[in-house]
């Protein structure tokens, strides 16, 4: 796992190596073991390396014999052994055992179609100097990041935006449209990022640059046509699905253990990570170390379930305890890594957890990410199902009682009267017709946060229609898919790469040079899951039904039976607890809010007041506080004082003590 960066000059002019060094310096956390740069008459490539496979000989940039092809690569190709054997049979010779060379040779063999053969998580760039073509690619689901921009005289790219900002002629400005999207969907819609003119290569896409021509193409997409056709198919297939899925998951896990360094696993206490851990323990010989985060706050803590899992599976286990103060103290650093506003603090404990993993000498962890999206685990799927069920008989007074089955971890919702429960989940006629039916309640709730926007931002985004933006990126056939599949798609295509795998995944793990691997996101598993009939994913209201059948007997029975609890962390109160961090006062002060111009200073002041008085308990208030504070941190650390990071420096001394 590594970081990559590069510059392609539009005219024939050698890239200044100093610029490349500056770019890669910004992302050294991604690859502290080694770094390398390469320039020719037009292109410059830089690479920061974290050695995982072929420790001695995997240096990058790597070239072919005549140096006409050069590659820099971040990620892992898990089927590289099979691909390598296949290429050797075809007469290709290899100088290293690395997966990097496999991509290079495969590109020689197949050109840009090579990505179709790869099973892995990647962002790479190949400079083909003969054809004067730069080829960039990003993995199917967006595990590894890749950003780019176009300046007056060059195409510039990097694993993280901060490497692009290392160039003096790149401007750093907040994009109000992206802010509007994040305060609706929780993510900006790729290729848009929170910064104007900085673009993200969307998951499943490649990009070629030839002189000034830049063309992106989608080489893979998540498709639910088959799953939608299988709606209501007979139960006889169920056994077959269980068998095939388990085989696939075993293999997806097995190839993710390919590494020349030891591999660990995260254990959350939920089904997905327990299942992954069990797959490693029961189907491979790999000695396994597990890691978890626990919370002081009982509302969020899953420590007892984690203990059950680690005892049941007999793993060597380490944990780190996270308090509200810890979250408050690491938050500026977290935002330095996420490089975008977020509405939840949940990435912060994972940042602390990756520090623990690294402190124990581990570079690679397996996690359960992706299972909820692919196998139907989230409450938003259940909510949509109940809302449809209620809307079919709007007069029914008993159907809405099913809403009590939702969000069991939200005490304030559970305390509502029947009448209010009905009102909160009431389906309005226009919603039933919407292609976003499942997600409208979430997006409408989130959109309320825009009341905090300044008049200036409000006027800039007034004519903007986020739903239209999203609609324009939907795949063909989407509107004919089953409703459950559409909801899955919205989670998997937007929130998964834009938040779960980035802010909560790659960025906070790589902050401490730790690489996550996700068996549920093996594309074979993903494609198989997409073809499973929706009624087997969620059987009536039993979420992840088919996956649970696969996991039966492999994980502790209590973990199978427990209600689904999404991973969450204390939000707003983290910033108003005990010794309050200085940056909160500074960045949320009326002066600063007015200067930065994104939010309304009076409204922010009343919100802060509500938190200080301990009265802000709602989801909306908490999302608003975290969203505003993280946006202010993005402005502070990227727009105002890029690279100075005074608040970031402040916390570094403190967190080591959190580990035990």
């Amino acid at each position, binding site marked *: 796992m590594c970081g990559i960066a590069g510059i392609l000059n539009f005219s024939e002019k050698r890239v200044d190596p100093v610029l490349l060094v500056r770019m890669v310096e910004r992302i050294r956390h991604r690859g502290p073991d080694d770094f390398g740069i390469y320039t020719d008459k037009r292109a410059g490539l830089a690479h920061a390396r974290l050695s995982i496979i072929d420790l001695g000989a995997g240096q990058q940039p790597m070239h072919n014999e005549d140096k006409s092809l050069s590659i820099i690569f971040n990620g892992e190709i898990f089927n590289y052994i099979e691909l390598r054997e296949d290429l050797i049979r075809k007469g290709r010779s290899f100088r290293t055992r690395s997966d990097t060379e496999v991509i290079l040779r495969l590109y020689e063999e197949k050109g840009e179609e090579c990505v179709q053969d790869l099973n892995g998580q990647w962002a790479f760039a190949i400079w083909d100097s003969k054809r004067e073509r730069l080829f960039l690619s990003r993995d199917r689901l967006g595990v590894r990041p890749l950003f780019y921009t176009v300046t007056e005289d060059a195409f510039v790219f990097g694993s993280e935006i901060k490497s692009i900002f290392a160039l003096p002629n790149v401007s750093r400005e907040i994009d109000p449209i992206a802010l509007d999207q994040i305060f609706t969907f929780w993510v900006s819609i790729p290729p848009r990022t929170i910064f104007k003119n900085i673009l993200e290569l969307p998951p499943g896409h490649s990009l070629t640059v030839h002189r000034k021509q830049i063309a992106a193409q989608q080489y893979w997409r998540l498709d639910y046509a088959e799953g939608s056709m299988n709606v209501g198919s007979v139960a006889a297939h169920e056994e077959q699905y269980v068998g095939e899925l388990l085989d696939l998951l075993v293999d997806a896990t097995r190839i993710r253990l390919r590494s020349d360094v030891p591999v660990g696993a995260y254990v959350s206490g939920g089904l997905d990570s327990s299942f992954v851990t069990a797959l490693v323990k029961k189907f491979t010989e790999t000695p396994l170390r597990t890691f978890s985060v626990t919370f002081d706050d009982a509302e969020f803590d899953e420590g007892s379930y984690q203990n059950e899992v680690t005892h049941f599976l007999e793993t060597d286990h380490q944990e780190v305890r996270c308090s509200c103060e810890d979250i408050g103290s690491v938050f500026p650093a977290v935002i330095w890594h996420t490089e975008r506003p977020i509405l939840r603090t949940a990435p912060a404990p994972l940042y602390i957890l990756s520090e623990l993993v690294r402190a124990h000498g581990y570079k690679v962890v397996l996690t359960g990410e992706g299972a909820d999206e692919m196998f139907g685990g989230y409450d938003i799927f259940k909510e949509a199902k109940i809302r449809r069920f209620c809307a079919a008989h709007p007069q029914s007074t008993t159907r809405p009682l099913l809403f009590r089955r939702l969000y069991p971890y*939200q005490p304030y919702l559970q*305390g509502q*009267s029947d009448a*209010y429960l009905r009102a909160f989940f*009431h389906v309005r006629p226009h919603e039933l017709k919407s292609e976003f039916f499942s997600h409208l309640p979430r997006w409408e709730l989130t959109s309320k946060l825009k009341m*905090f926007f300044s008049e200036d931002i409000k006027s800039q985004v007034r004519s903007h229609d986020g739903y239209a933006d999203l609609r324009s990126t939907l795949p063909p056939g989407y509107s004919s898919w089953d409703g459950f599949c559409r909801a899955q798609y919205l989670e998997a295509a937007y929130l998964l790469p834009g938040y779960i795998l980035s802010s909560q995944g790659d960025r906070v793990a790589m902050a401490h040079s730790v690489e996550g691997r996700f068996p549920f996101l093996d594309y074979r598993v993903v494609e198989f899951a997409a073809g499973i009939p929706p009624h087997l994913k969620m059987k009536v209201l039993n979420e992840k039904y088919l996956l649970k059948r696969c996991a039966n007997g492999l994980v502790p029975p209590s973990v199978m039976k427990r209600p689904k609890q999404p991973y969450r962390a204390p939000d707003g109160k983290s910033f108003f607890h005990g010794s309050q961090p200085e940056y909160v006062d500074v960045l949320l002060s009326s002066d600063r809010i007015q200067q930065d111009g994104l939010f309304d200073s009076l*409204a922010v002041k009343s*919100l802060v007041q509500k938190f200080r008085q301990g*009265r802000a308990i709602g*989801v909306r208030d908490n999302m608003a506080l975290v969203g505003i504070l993280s946006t202010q941190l993005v402005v502070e650390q990227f727009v105002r004082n890029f690279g100075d990071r005074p608040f970031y420096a402040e916390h570094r001394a403190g967190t080591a003590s959190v580990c035990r």
Partner: protein
Amino acid sequence: MQNIEQELRQFVVDNFLFGQPNGHLSSSDSFLDKGIIDSTGVLELVVFLEETYRIKIQDRELVPDNLDSINNLVRFLERKLQHTS
């Protein structure tokens, strides 16, 4: 009651609209329809009513008919205060 209506309005504007009048909040506007209140909002409202007016609100009274607009709140509160006095 004029006073109570003003106090209630002030609370709703401060607490749920963060000082922003958000257009004109009319006394008959439904908090639910206008998206002013969410599930915790109902409880925040109840805590405010109980503390400010020293009343006790029963679970069965937690319904939109009592709480979902300034008018509903005023009516509900009048009834409650008569009972206690």
